[in-house]
């Protein structure tokens, strides 16, 4: 019997694309306690926003996170539209929905690849990222950039979809679906993947509610909560149900994300079919005043924006609560009692985004 050892995990680790640090208190192969160390990616965005013009803060909000940059821009624009009583044209709402779902697709496919890499399944990682490039092509063709698109603005969207772009979208969605179907089959049928994920990182329904989990982490524990049901953008007019799994382990969270990819493809098709005609941008005048809270479903869960403005050109307070921050307490709960070899899989199962968390 040996005593306790402390193993540093990260900040630079081949599994994570971002610096994230665990201090793992181990007894033999079991983790007794896990202490997260964050702060490697702090940039002071909330303070910067109080010095910038509110219209420029949109670009800052977009750079909170490179993976879900569209979602942050959307949340910021929606918040300011609420504050300034702007009615967004219906076509812009639909375009926002289409692009938000593309962002969700690319984020989930990215995660699927990283998860495969964490199991040591290198070829599946490559396949998932190959499929992801179809989404990136669609993003680039319709929004004009791969990562930072700046396609949302206060009062609507900057770009319109022309006929050719819609054809391109539909064509690529078909290719994507075929490619993704193959990846999906490997994930749901491969015994090795099941061996690494089934029963690993259990988070019961009660615990997930008590610890405040959000997004796929919560839905993987059997709670049907999805911020898209609130009906922001054009989600109120589209048909969908939150994807829920009840097995409460890493496998359930993985299956939720895989099924959400099919859901996103379906939502984009619905939105293209219903796409109304008209303008995509209204002019916005004046300066914001008052307080507002916006909740949006990011790929990782619920994103909360709180904005307080006092009628001057910059905001008085800008506060972001990101899904990974909400998911950290459940993650600490899951890691206790796990094997050291399962730590990367469990950490990835909540889809950590450190850039969002530390801002």
């Amino acid at each position, binding site marked *: 019997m040996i005593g306790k050892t402390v193993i540093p995990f990260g900040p630079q680790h081949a599994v994570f694309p*971002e610096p994230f640090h665990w201090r793992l208190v181990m007894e033999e192969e079991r983790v007794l306690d896990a202490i997260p160390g964050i702060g490697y990616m702090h940039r002071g965005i909330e303070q910067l926003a109080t010095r910038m013009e509110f219209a420029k803060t949109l670009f800052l909000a977009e750079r909170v996170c490179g993976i879900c940059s569209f979602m942050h821009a959307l949340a910021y624009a929606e918040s300011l539209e609420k504050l300034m009583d702007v009615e967004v044209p219906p076509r812009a709402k639909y375009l926002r929905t289409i692009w938000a779902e593309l962002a969700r697709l690319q984020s989930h496919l990215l995660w699927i690849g990283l998860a495969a890499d964490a199991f040591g399944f290198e070829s599946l990682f490559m396949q998932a990222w190959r499929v992801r490039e179809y989404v990136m092509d669609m993003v680039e063709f319709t929004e004009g950039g791969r990562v930072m698109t700046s396609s949302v603005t206060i009062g609507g969207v900057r770009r319109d979809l022309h006929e050719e772009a819609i054809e391109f979208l539909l064509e690529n969605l078909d290719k994507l679906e075929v490619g993704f179907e193959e990846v999906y089959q490997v994930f749901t049928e491969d015994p090795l993947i099941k061996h690494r994920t089934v029963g690993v990182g259990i988070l019961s329904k009660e615990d997930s509610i008590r610890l405040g989990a959000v997004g796929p982490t919560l839905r993987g524990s059997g709670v049907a909560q999805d911020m898209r049901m609130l009906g922001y953008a054009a989600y109120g007019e589209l048909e969908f149900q939150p994807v829920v799994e009840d097995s409460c382990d890493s496998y359930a969270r993985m299956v939720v994300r895989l099924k959400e990819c099919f859901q996103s493809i379906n939502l984009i098709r619905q939105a293209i079919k219903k796409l109304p005609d008209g303008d995509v941008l209204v002019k916005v005048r004046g300066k914001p005043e008052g307080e507002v809270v916006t909740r949006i479903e990011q790929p990782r869960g619920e994103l909360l924006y709180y904005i307080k403005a006092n009628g001057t050109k910059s905001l008085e307070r800008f506060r972001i609560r990101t899904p990974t921050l909400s998911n950290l307490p459940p993650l600490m709960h899951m890691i206790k009692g796990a094997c050291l070899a399962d730590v990367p899989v469990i950490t990835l199962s909540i889809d950590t985004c450190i850039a969002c968390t530390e801002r």
Partner: protein
Amino acid sequence: MSLVALSRKKSPWLLHFETGGCNGCAIEVWACLTPVYDVERFGMVNTGNPKHADVLIVTGCVNARSGRVLRNLYSQMPEPKVVIAVGVCACTGGIFHDSYNLAPGADRAIPVDIYIPNCAARPEAIIDSVLHAVDLLEEKGRSYDARRS
């Protein structure tokens, strides 16, 4: 050309470290490693171990906490080594340049050889920079070998 010098040119290994920023450039670096862009056709392999690496790719803006890790990684890499700053945050700090806790650019922490300013850097630009890094590595290797003999 000695065997060591040849292998340096033939197969440089990459170490990627995200120091801060938004992750956008980090996922583009990862996209470079995957089938569509595929830098592995130039013999490059992504490694997690600084002691095996020849090229350090830095993305994101540097703060005091991540700067310390970055210096650690740099000093653990064997000579000769090349550092690429990918993205405008790693070059100058970008949109965050006047934030209270950031150094304006990765070159305040470690010496940088190649800069790619862009937000976010495109995979094509990253591939171009790693190819430049190969030439630079060969050049640095020659002077390193001359110093040693």
